């Protein structure tokens, strides 16, 4: 052994490196712990650890919280923008119904309560042929006082020039000091104004009739045979027969209003929607918690059968990772794997400890969705149905022990296996309109197995949450 060759030196060195175990007693955990405490301080054990929560729990919570906040904020903003006039108008409801005698002796019954209890789109004034009750209406003194005190109620006096002359328009912003002046019709709040002037034909006709009535009692001709009169909101300063002038402030409000002038609305049929969906997938095939998250990505298609009920489908790709204990599956030879690549060193089924599976699946869901709430531009829905799984590839790693040795081996199966309607789908969530037919949808989901699947006959339970961007094209337009 006087001359060792290079190869011998290398071989001896490798063997020594593999086999020699130096004394490690000098290594101490406490020294490393001190270092770890400096570089990676441990968080207090009793404190709340957000990072330790299941991502599906906090992920779903964040999305639902964001949706609820979005809905609440929008609702509040909507209320703030839409209620001021109503709030000022409502007190005026205390004004007693006015009955105004027209030229032919008919009385126009002004039900101001009804006017403000209804939406601002249509304000109805009931006219009926009733006997005039002297003193019950058009008392310049008492009625005018009442109206002035109300501050905003629009009222209408008509037909009897003498009595009409006792009224003056009052407005929320106008001082109640304004005296009743002859020839002044009444006006509603601004919200009514914008609607009424927006041009409904019927309203327009009625407006004309009312206008005429302000001066010369022509109203009889237009209202006599009608049970309802749509009150135009701007019936103002009629200074003479057949003449209508506007209230400046109200007209300004009208001009500034974003409300469409033309009330002939176009109805867009967006019953069909397509979407792009994605999200995490968490699959459990037994009692062992999976620590790897799968993906969920695909296209969706929905069609509204009614206003609230829609049918939905899609084509979604998902990969699932799961663990299972031995008792959850049957050890069987995969059908598609040739014996050459399928290791069967065991005469009898070996004691398998657990299994780690991964599957690539195309999913075809078919669900019915019901929108149980719709506020502003946010819909809340529940969805249920069945899904079909088309397993494209399965990979399993078997962990087993034999003679106290732990072994593992891997099997892959590329043969497609179809499971029609093998999964029950349940989900709920919200859909927020983004405008122009686009919307965003978030929904936690749960997929329950109706049958065993895969070459290991596992029940795959999946849950997670989906985020979907949708687009609803205009299928048709119709005028209403």
């Amino acid at each position, binding site marked *: *052994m*006087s*001359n*060792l060759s*290079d190869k011998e*030196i*290398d071989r*001896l*060195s*490798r*063997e*020594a*490196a593999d*086999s*020699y*175990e*130096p*004394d*490690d007693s*000098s*290594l101490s*955990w406490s*020294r*490393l*712990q001190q*270092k*770890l405490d400096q*570089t*990676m301080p*441990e*968080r207090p054990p009793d404190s709340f650890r957000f*990072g*330790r929560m299941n991502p599906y729990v906090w992920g779903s919570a964040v999305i639902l919280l964001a949706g609820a906040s979005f809905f609440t904020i929008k609702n509040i903003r909507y209320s703030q923008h839409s209620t001021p006039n109503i709030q000022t108008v409502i007190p005026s409801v205390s004004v007693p119904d006015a009955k105004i005698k027209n030229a032919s002796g008919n009385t126009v019954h002004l039900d101001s309560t009804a006017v403000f209890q209804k939406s601002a789109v249509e304000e109805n004034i009931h006219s009926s042929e009733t006997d005039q009750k002297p003193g019950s209406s058009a008392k310049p003194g008492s009625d005018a006082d009442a109206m002035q005190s109300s501050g905003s109620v629009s009222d209408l006096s008509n037909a009897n020039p003498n009595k009409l002359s006792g009224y003056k328009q009052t407005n929320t912003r106008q001082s109640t000091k304004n005296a009743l002046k002859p020839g002044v019709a009444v006006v509603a709040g601004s919200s009514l104004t914008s609607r009424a002037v927006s041009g409904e034909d019927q309203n327009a006709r009625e407006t004309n009739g009312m206008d005429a009535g302000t001066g010369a009692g022509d109203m009889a001709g237009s209202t006599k045979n009608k049970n309802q009169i749509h009150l135009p909101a701007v019936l103002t300063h009629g200074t003479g027969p057949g003449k209508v002038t506007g209230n400046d402030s109200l007209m300004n409000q009208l001009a500034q209003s974003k409300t469409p002038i033309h009330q002939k609305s176009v109805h867009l049929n967006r019953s069909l929607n397509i979407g792009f969906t994605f999200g995490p997938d968490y699959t459990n095939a037994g009692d*062992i918690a999976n*620590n*790897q998250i799968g993906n969920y990505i695909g296209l969706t298609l929905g069609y509204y059968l009614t206003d609230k009920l829609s049918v939905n489908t899609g084509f979604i790709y998902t990969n699932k*990772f799961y663990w299972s204990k031995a008792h959850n599956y049957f050890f069987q030879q995969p059908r598609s794997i040739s014996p050459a690549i399928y290791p069967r060193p065991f005469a009898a089924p070996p004691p398998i*400890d*657990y299994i*780690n599976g991964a599957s690539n699946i195309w999913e075809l869901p078919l669900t019915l969705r019901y929108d149980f709430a719709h506020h502003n531009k946010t819909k809340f829905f529940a969805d249920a149905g069945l899904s079909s799984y088309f397993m494209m590839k399965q990979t399993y*790693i078997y*962990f087993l*022990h034999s003679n106290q040795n*732990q072994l*593992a*081996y*891997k099997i892959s199966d590329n043969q497609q296996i179809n499971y029609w309607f093998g999964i029950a789908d349940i989900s709920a969530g919200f859909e927020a309109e983004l405008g122009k037919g686009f919307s965003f949808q978030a929904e936690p989901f749960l997929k329950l197995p109706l049958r065993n699947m895969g070459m290991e006959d596992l029940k795959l339970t999946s849950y997670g949450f989906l985020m979907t961007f949708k687009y609803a094209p205009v299928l048709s337009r119709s005028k209403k």
Partner: protein
Amino acid sequence: MMNGNHHISALIAGCRQNDRSSQKELYEFLKGYAMKICYRYQHNQYQVEEIVSEGFTKFFKNIHQFDENRHLEITMALKGWFKRILVNTCIDYYRKNSSYLHGQKLSEETEKIADHGETGLDKLSYKEIIEAIRLLSPAYRTVFNLFVIEGMSHEEIGKHLGISVGASKSNLSKARENLRKILTKKSDVKRYVEPI
């Protein structure tokens, strides 16, 4: 004692959460392995402990990058991953201290220590071979470890250590020569017995 892949997976999950008890258990499981690797790269015992400690710190910091689901045998995969960390830590340590660690010749002290290595045993043990490697100068020792034991190429060694391929080959040649000198001196008085 590790009970298998599932237990290691649980420990890894705990380490990802910076759980000290999981870290301690994994440390106890791997410290012998870490010592075995780092011991070859350093002659000074204190520096070996420093490198092991640094390697474990890196290991715990980056354990989220280890994907145990991609491996059949998690323990083997984990050890392989940890070994890369340790070797890189040794290389880093060498590079940091290379300005004063370069030596080209077997020092007098080395030869003395080699001679002191006689233990009365009539064979070369693994311990003596490893100790002989440790007696090499840092530059030779590092190249020898990386080439012979870790299986790196001269190009990779040159890249890692910041030296040329020629320098790497030269250092390896000299390392072998010095190692042969050390082992031959031993074998002159003791007959080498191939380990079983």
